[in-house]
C-alpha cells in the first residue's frame, strides 16, 4: 500500500493520499497544474517536502535508486540512452514474449529508437517499466499518443496489473479512461490537490 503524507510537489499545497494494493488513482486537472510534478515528487526525482510510505516503510529509508525501482515513473515524453530499443531492456526473452500484449512485435527489440513512431515509443517505454514489475507505477498520460486499439491494449494490460496487486497513479485527460481503470480521482488545480469521486 502506498501512503502519501504532507507531500508538497513544487508549488502545490501539501496533501495526503492512500492508495491500496491493486488500485488505480487517476490524476486529472488543467495543463500546467502540477500533475507531472506530483508524479515526479512521488518518484523523488525533484527536491520535495513530505513523506511517502510503501508497505509502511518510508522512502527515505530506501536508497534513492531502490525507491525508484519500486515506484517507477513513466513520463509522457520517453527518454532513450542508446540507439537500439533492445539495449534498454535487461531480459529480452521475457520482453519478446510480453510485447505482443501491447500490440508490438518481438522484432521491436532490434529497432532503432530514432525510427520509432510516437505510439511505438510510448508503448515500448511503458513495456520497459512493466517488465521490471514494480509494486507502484506512476504513469503520465500512458495512452495520449495511441490509436484506439493500442490504447485499449494498454488499458487491458493495466487492468491485468491491478488484478496482480500493482498500485497505479496515472495522469489522464480522459474521464472515460479514469472511470474505466481508476477507483479514485485526484483533481489538481489552483495549487491544490483534492480527492474527488471518480
Amino acid at each position: 500500500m502506498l501512503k502519501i503524507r504532507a507531500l508538497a510537489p513544487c508549488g502545490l499545497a501539501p496533501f495526503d493520499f492512500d492508495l491500496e494494493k491493486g488500485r488505480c488513482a487517476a490524476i486529472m486537472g488543467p495543463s500546467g497544474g502540477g500533475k507531472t510534478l506530483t508524479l515526479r515528487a512521488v518518484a523523488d526525482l525533484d527536491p520535495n517536502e513530505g513523506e511517502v510510505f510503501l508497505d509502511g516503510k518510508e522512502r527515505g529509508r530506501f536508497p534513492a535508486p531502490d525507491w525508484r525501482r519500486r515506484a517507477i515513473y513513466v513520463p509522457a515524453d520517453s527518454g532513450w540512452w542508446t540507439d537500439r530499443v533492445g539495449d534498454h531492456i535487461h531480459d529480452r526473452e521475457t520482453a519478446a514474449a510480453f510485447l505482443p500484449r501491447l500490440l508490438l512485435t518481438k522484432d521491436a527489440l532490434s529497432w532503432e529508437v530514432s525510427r520509432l513512431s510516437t505510439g511505438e515509443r510510448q508503448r515500448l517505454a511503458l513495456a520497459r517499466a512493466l517488465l521490471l514489475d514494480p509494486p507502484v507505477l506512476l504513469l503520465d498520460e500512458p495512452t495520449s499518443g495511441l490509436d484506439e486499439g493500442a490504447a485499449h491494449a494498454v488499458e487491458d494490460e493495466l487492468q491485468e496489473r491491478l488484478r496482480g496487486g500493482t498500485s497505479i497513479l496515472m495522469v489522464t485527460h480522459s474521464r472515460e479512461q479514469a472511470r474505466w481503470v481508476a477507483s479514485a480521482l485526484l483533481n489538481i488545480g489552483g495549487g491544490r490537490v483534492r480527492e474527488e469521486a471518480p
Partner: protein
Amino acid sequence: MNLITLDAWDLLLAALLIGLNAFFSIWLRLSLERQLLIAALRMIVQLTLMGFVLKTLFAISSLPFTLTALTFMALFAGNEVHGRQERRFTGWWSYGVGTISGNTMTGISLGLNTLTAQVARERISVEAQLALGATFLQAIRPLLRGAAKTGFIPIVNSMAAVGLVSLPGMMTGQILSGVDPIEAIKYQMLIMFLITGGTGLGVMIAVHAGAWRLTDRRHRLRLDRLAAESKAGKG
C-alpha cells in the same frame, strides 16, 4: 651564445596575423574578434609584466616571493576556466576546480563545458535511467566519458604532434638561444610529461566533481545548479 634579437617590427608583423583573424571573424560573423583581441592585448600586458616579475624573482631568488607569484597564477587560471563556460555552475565552486594547475586550464574548460552542455541536452534520457532505478553515476557515465574525452583532445593532440607538426616554444627558444638541441629536447619531454599528467588528472577530477555537483544524496539530476544561460551562451 649566438642570440637572435627581435625588434618591434618583427613583433608587429606577427601581430598582423591576429588582426587577419579578427577581420575574417567579422566578415564571417563568428563574433570571435572581441574575445581574440582582448586575449591578445592581455597577453601583451601579462607577458611584459611577467618579464619584470621573473627578472626580479631570479634576482632575489626567495621562496616566499616565488610562492606568492605561483598562487596568483593559479587563482587566475581558476577564474579563466570559470569565464569560458557556456553554462556555469552557480556559486564559488567552479573557481576552486580551476586552481589545480595553470596548465590544466584548457582541458578542464573543455571537459566541464562539454559535460554541462551534454547534461542539459540529455536531461530526458538521464532522468529516464534514474526513473528506472539507475544510480546517478550509471545514468551519467556516457556523458562523463564524452566530457573527459573532449578534455583530453588538446593534450593528446599536442603530444602526438610534437616534433612532427609542432615545435614547442620553450624548446625552440632554448635552441635559438644556443642550447644543445639534445638538452633542450630532454627538457621538453620533462615538461610534456608534467603537463600531460597534470592535465589528465585535472580533467578527470574536474568532470567527476562536476557530475557530483549535478546530483544530490537522492541521486536526482540537479540542473537547477547550473546558471541557465550566460553571455557566452547567448552570443
